[in-house]
């Protein structure tokens, strides 16, 4: 039965690939080639050289950090796919309607998820690390132990992921679990930014900052000894079997006792008040509620809100570790404008594309497109300007620039958002996507490419700023010229908003996925 389920899943995957559009296939192949030809050799070389050359005193810490980093990434990845594959798709209910036991379903899904999201990543990692460790000590048994260690680790991660999903699914609605975990996934991207800010150029310098750890891989993964080298892997395999059996118990109990469905209900919210308001205010309030109650949505948008900080880093990389940002006033103002442009474009596009989800309902309402677009514009301005102003005011506090620069920055943020939000809305309304399995996916490939290209150009320009603006001090005249130009753009953007209103009247061209 397990083989039958796995075979069905394999066929479904093949069919999915067969019916994919040619353009999508080409994109996937290009991404695959990019990973294989650039990223993989880079990571392999880096990992191999670090592991092979690091001081023996740091080996335990390095291996522990590798294991923990894999744990964070793989557990979040596995949880996301388990929820998507088993719960949001309703496949549990489907399989359980056949003469298949919950245990058989668990084993089949476990094998699939372990192979796809753990072993496929950890096996190459184990080979690289194992080869480096074996080369260090000239003991090739270390290679085998490294492979066993990382594969068993992968089984642990898959078990933890299954356990977390099915334990929490018993306590709260699966959708909420999915949203919270997706939010954590989004937050984990912040780690990348943090690393960019904090990491110095010396890897061993960072390792030296950690206290001594009570774990030792000596005898098993390095400095091979026959007793530890044989007993260690056997113990790991036994522990893996035990944790898989425990996970099976949790999952089977969850499926058999309550069944896991998408509509698992929770309690009521605080009693509200029935009242009416102006349609535009109501539309903007509706958007506010849809945004803040959807944690999955916040997870997608959060990294965009933090992007301006990355721009700050790019525009003064040499001084990132200093107590104050040594940035010219013109640099600060340009960075604020660039950050506002990128954020306003994406947020505007994402929120407008979200309307596709309930577009039929909006269309039947007696509200003209102009009001729908205006309400969305107001909401997008509220969702961008205050946040950006706070971020850049904090940045200004850490700089040596004067109050006049802060005022220019705030004016620039407001005007850029007023100008860029309608453009973002136009992009978002061009061909929005509605996906049941991936509800936070709102934009089509073309819109994503357009926004990414703009982001890329802004990033490039901002990173070049220190060279272009070196020695140029921003005066009142320059400031007023910039503000006037931006004000003209903000007024001109009303014409773009008119085009968006037209799309609300005519109807969006919506692509329904899944």
């Amino acid at each position, binding site marked *: 039965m397990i083989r039958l389920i796995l075979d069905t899943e394999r066929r479904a995957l093949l069919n999915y690939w067969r019916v994919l559009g040619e353009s999508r296939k080409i994109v996937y192949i290009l991404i695959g080639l990019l990973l294989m030809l650039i990223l993989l050799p880079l990571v392999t070389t880096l990992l191999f050289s670090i592991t092979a050359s690091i001081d023996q005193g740091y080996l335990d810490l390095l291996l522990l950090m590798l294991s923990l980093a894999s744990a964070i990434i793989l557990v979040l990845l596995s949880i996301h796919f388990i929820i998507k594959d088993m719960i949001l798709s309703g496949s549990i209910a489907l399989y359980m309607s056949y003469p298949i036991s919950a245990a058989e379903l668990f084993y089949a899904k476990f094998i699939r998820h372990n192979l796809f999201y753990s072993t496929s990543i950890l096996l190459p990692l184990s080979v690289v690390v194992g080869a480096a460790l074996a080369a260090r000590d000239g003991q090739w048994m270390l290679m085998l132990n490294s492979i066993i260690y990382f594969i068993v680790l992968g089984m642990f991660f898959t078990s933890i992921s299954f356990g977390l999903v099915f334990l929490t699914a018993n306590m709260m609605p699966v959708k909420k679990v999915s949203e919270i975990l997706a939010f954590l996934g989004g937050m984990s991207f912040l780690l990348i930014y943090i690393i960019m800010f904090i990491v110095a150029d010396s890897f061993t310098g960072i390792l030296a900052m950690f206290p001594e750890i009570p774990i030792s891989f000596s005898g098993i993964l390095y400095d091979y000894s026959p007793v530890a080298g044989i007993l260690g892997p056997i113990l790991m395999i036994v522990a893996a079997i035990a944790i898989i059996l425990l996970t099976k118990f949790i999952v089977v109990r969850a499926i058999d006792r309550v069944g896991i469905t998408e509509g698992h209900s929770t309690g009521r919210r605080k009693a509200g008040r029935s009242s009416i*308001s102006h*349609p535009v205010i109501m539309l903007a309030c509706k958007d506010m509620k849809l945004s803040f109650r959807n944690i999955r949505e916040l997870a997608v948008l959060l990294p965009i809100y933090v992007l301006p900080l990355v721009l700050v880093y790019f525009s003064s990389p040499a001084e990132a570790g200093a107590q104050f940002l040594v940035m010219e006033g013109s640099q600060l103002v340009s960075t604020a404008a660039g950050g506002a442009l990128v954020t306003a474009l994406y947020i505007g596009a994402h929120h407008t594309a979200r309307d596709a989800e309930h*577009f039929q309902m909006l269309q039947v309402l007696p509200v003209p497109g102009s009001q729908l677009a205006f309400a969305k514009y107001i909401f997008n301005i509220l969702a961008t300007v205050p946040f950006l102003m706070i971020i850049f005011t904090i940045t200004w506090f850490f700089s040596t620039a004067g109050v006049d620069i802060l005022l220019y920055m705030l004016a620039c943020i407001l005007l850029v958002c007023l100008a860029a939000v309608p453009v973002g809305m136009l992009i978002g309304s061009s061909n929005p996507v509605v996906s049941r399995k991936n509800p936070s996916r709102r934009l089509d490939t073309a819109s994503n490419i357009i926004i990414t290209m703009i982001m890329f150009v802004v990033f490039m320009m901002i990173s070049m700023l220190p060279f272009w603006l070196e020695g140029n001090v921003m005066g009142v005249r320059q400031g007023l010229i910039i503000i006037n130009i931006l004000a003209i753009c903000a007024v001109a953007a009303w014409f773009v908003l008119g085009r968006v209103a037209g799309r609300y009247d005519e109807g969006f061209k919506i692509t329904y996925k899944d």
Partner: protein
Amino acid sequence: MLKVEKLDKKYGSSYAVRDLNFTVGSGELFAFIGPNGSGKSTTIRMLTGLLKASGGSVEMFGEEMGPGKTHLKARLSFIPDTPDLMGKLTGREYLNFIASVYKIDEAVFLEEQQKLLALFDLEGKLDTLIEEYSHGMKQKVALIGALIHKPDILFLDEPTVGLDPKSNRNLKNYLREYAESGRTVFLTTHNLSLAEEIATDILIIYNGRKLAQGTLAELRKMAGNETAGLEDIFLELTEVSGNDPSDT
């Protein structure tokens, strides 16, 4: 109140709806029935201004209906077969939203809301997120949202799907009274006993074309069976038409 003339909808080279003609007057409870894929939902979407017709016209309250006609939309309501309510709002917030965009007087809104909540047995259940409602409860909230501003014409696509027996009966009675008060109900359904029970006029659509229209008695005459139920008439007429080679 509603006049449809030579209405066409073409997708590529094939017609989803072809040469449809009918009128619906005030106080009528009009049932629009047909097999799956016969063009019911496409027609209803054209009537409500959600979809542009390829040809012909839809006249509502003496004016051409179209996507931008918000003043006409203010006088109608439409509930699709799967209402796309906003899951992250509570039932109450959704109804506040609807009342605001239809600009209902607050006192009238509160009074009507109370009546409809009692009718659909939804009292005390409005402060839960819509995404946590069952299908039937979502349908009830959608129905309340559609009825609360007392539209002159009410379009319902499969309104009884998911409703419990009590709400089903209450809805039937409500729709009857609603039509008797001079307003119009336009209903599509596969539940032929519902159409037989409450409709004052019935139109059968098949392969995008009008197959028959009339009261139940008139349809019986057309089918040549004076005692037949709507189900028998429907099957009789659609099977005859399905065997007719000129129909394809």
